[in-house]
């Protein structure tokens, strides 16, 4: 795969987050933390309501990186992120990325998940052999 040029924006992944999708991920991922699935419990927490799993947001980033880099992402990909803010049911989450550095067989991208207000939910870097 040819290394994309510095500044290239990756094709974004845009997902409407719903409580049903969060519940489905909780079942598939085996993470039944009530912060994600129990509105009554979540209402009593610092978040004031249910939030999506951080790993669900990373799955959207991974989908974007799989589409951009193919098997180079699956074998040799690296991701380092911080969770900045939660995604809530009703949010539209965009996973976006831009090539920061490319050379010596590695491509480094800045990656983010943002909500519909432009608030950064997850930010970090991804690196692939490309």
């Amino acid at each position: 795969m040819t290394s994309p040029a510095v500044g290239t924006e990756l094709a974004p992944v845009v997902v409407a987050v719903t409580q049903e999708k969060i519940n489905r991920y909780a079942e598939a991922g085996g993470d039944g933390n009530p912060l994600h699935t129990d509105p009554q419990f979540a209402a009593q927490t610092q978040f004031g309501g249910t939030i999506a799993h951080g790993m669900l947001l990373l799955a959207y980033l991974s989908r974007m990186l799989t589409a951009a880099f193919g098997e180079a992402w699956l074998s040799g990909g690296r991701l380092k992120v911080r969770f900045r803010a939660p995604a809530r049911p009703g949010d539209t989450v965009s996973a976006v990325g831009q090539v920061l550095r490319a050379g010596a067989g590695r491509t480094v991208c800045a990656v983010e998940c943002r909500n519909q207000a432009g608030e950064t939910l997850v930010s970090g870097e991804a690196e692939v052999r490309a």
Partner: protein
Amino acid sequence: MPPRLDTLPKGHDLPATTFELSPEWVGEYVAAVEDEAIGALGPGLVPPMAVAALAVRALLERAALPPGAVHIGQEMTFLRAARIGEKLSASARIVSRGERQGWLLMGIDLSVNGDGGPVMEGRATLTMPAAEGAS
């Protein structure tokens, strides 16, 4: 009942747990995360984040998250592509633990291996309210 994560010391190894990337489970995962990209690469490949999700699930089977625990950071390296039907083993170790202003910050290294060699490694960073006498 597994021990609560916030009661475990730095250096504690969580016992390894094994699992299979069954077609049914991978299908459920791919549907749940709406991953249309993995199928375009050909049959049999598993999204790398699915392996990471299973590693986290393995962790949750060995140490219960206390109420109010929040995942604040994640690092991961995918060493090779995993395939549907593979049997994998996940293990975890608590590599850092500190308390500040009533909150506990813990770093947990995760690794996933299979017959074909290591699949992924990573580190999860979590914070949670510090329980009295737990730190």
